[in-house]
């Protein structure tokens, strides 16, 4: 991917050095404030608008990501068409759980990366593992400054012809696996996904989709911050397809057995 010099390396040619043609302000001359001069608190925040689980599953020939389209404002189902799964390029997809604003911030940066790559026009494009590595470094460095991006990301795609699925959380813990779920999905959906993969390690695309849809349904039943409106992203050698606004059939008859439910 295009290595914009200002993004990797020292942004200035002479860090802390004199500006050409100006007087040099020697460091440590007038120390007045102990904290940053702007007074902005950069400390562990709490998320505001959040997204719930994202599920990722590797099948024979590709990877699939699924998640609902809800942005919860605490317990309020405020934004019901948020795309939490985005296409990065023809071989990579990114899904996010957690604070939507932090996700959108990174989304803009990643989109700019893709544009820079396009401009460089040197044939190099962002691969899923490279995006995963980069994301890990960014998240870890933010957490090390006590100013984390409050998200868990799933990076999915085709890396050198093979399906790749990686996860990284807000403290920079990164790993990759053939089945990953974030948020409540890790507790509710992952056991179902593991069971499915054990029965058939090399699933077809249709089987994977059916498994994920079943998991999404269970999550809608059990996760209070879920919505019955989903995105499913499929990445194969042919490219990326993201289906939006998928609604599932649900059966709430069991609710009648709840004592106190009218």
């Amino acid at each position, binding site marked *: *991917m*295009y*290595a914009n010099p200002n993004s*990797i*390396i020292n942004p200035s040619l002479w860090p802390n050095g004199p500006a*050409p043609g100006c007087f040099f302000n020697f460091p440590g001359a007038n120390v007045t404030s102990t904290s940053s001069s702007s007074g902005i608190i950069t400390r562990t925040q709490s998320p505001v608008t959040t997204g719930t689980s994202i599920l990722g599953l590797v099948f024979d020939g590709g990877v699939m990501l699924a998640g609902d389209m809800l942005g919860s404002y605490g317990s309020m189902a405020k934004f019901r068409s948020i795309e939490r799964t985005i296409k990065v390029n023809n071989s990579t997809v990114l899904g996010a759980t957690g604070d939507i604003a932090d996700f959108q911030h990174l989304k803009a940066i990643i989109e700019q990366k893709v544009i820079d790559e396009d401009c*460089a026009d040197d044939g*190099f494009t962002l691969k899923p593992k490279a995006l995963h*590595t980069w994301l890990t*470094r960014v998240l870890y460095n933010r957490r090390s400054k006590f100013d984390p991006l409050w998200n868990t990301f799933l990076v999915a795609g085709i890396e050198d012809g093979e399906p790749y699925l990686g996860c990284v959380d807000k403290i920079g813990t990164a790993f990759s696996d053939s089945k990953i779920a974030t948020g409540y999905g890790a507790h509710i959906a992952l056991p179902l996904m593991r069971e499915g993969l054990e029965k058939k390690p090399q699933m077809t695309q249709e089987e994977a989709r059916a498994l994920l849809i079943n998991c999404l349904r269970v999550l809608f039943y059990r996760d209070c911050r879920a919505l019955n409106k989903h995105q499913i992203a499929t990445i194969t050698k042919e490219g990326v397809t993201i289906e939006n606004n998928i609604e599932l059939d649900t059966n709430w008859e069991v609710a009648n057995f709840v004592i106190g439910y009218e």
Partner: protein
Amino acid sequence: MARRYDTRTTIFSPEGRLYQVEYAMEAIGHAGTCLGILASDGIVLAAERRNTNKLLDEVFFSEKIYQLNADMVCSVAGITSDANVLTNELRLISQRYLLQYGESIPCEQLVSWLCDVKQAYTQYGGKRPFGVSLLYAGWDHQYGFQLYQSDPSGNYGGWKATCIGNNSAAAVSMLKQEYKEGETKIDDALALAIRVMSKTMDATKLTPDKLELATLTRHDNKTYIKVLPVAQVKALIADHEKKEAAEAAKSKPSTAS
């Protein structure tokens, strides 16, 4: 009269020249020769070693050839201390990229980045340019084997075969005649490198301690960068001299009249 315009790098002369940049290239023209040749299965870098004093402690294995990262190696011509700063920076850039993306930096991006820095020193800050030209040999999965040359102005180009340093013009014209694109393998490139170096170096006779040779090749999805050991250089020089002697013997009967 030109003197008035060349004490600062960041200004043009009335004729539209950047004198400091040109003087830097002049400095490189007096430095030890480096040449690079692209073969279909790898790249050869050859360098003239100038510091052959017996009193020198063997701290560095190679005087002019530096490995930059897993897939790239470079050789330098010019002011050694400037070269050290640049090669160190090239190595740092490669590692930063590797840390961020988990894969090797594409060759041209590394070259291009350093050249942007070199150019900045010709336009900002009132600092002199780096008096170094570099030859970069590298491999990446997009373009395969590549050979680049950069100079103090910050300009760079991709080459099939090129030379920098002392007598580089003569070497380049020799390469132009003798380099066969598409038909050159590593061994052909090594032989050609020795042939060209023997003609352009000051020494009357090529010896292994005056010549550094390095190759960059790929096996089993891995890049191998090798600075040739003295024994191998000796053997190659011996081969070259044998061939020279054979050529001389062949042409003798026809010239005798």
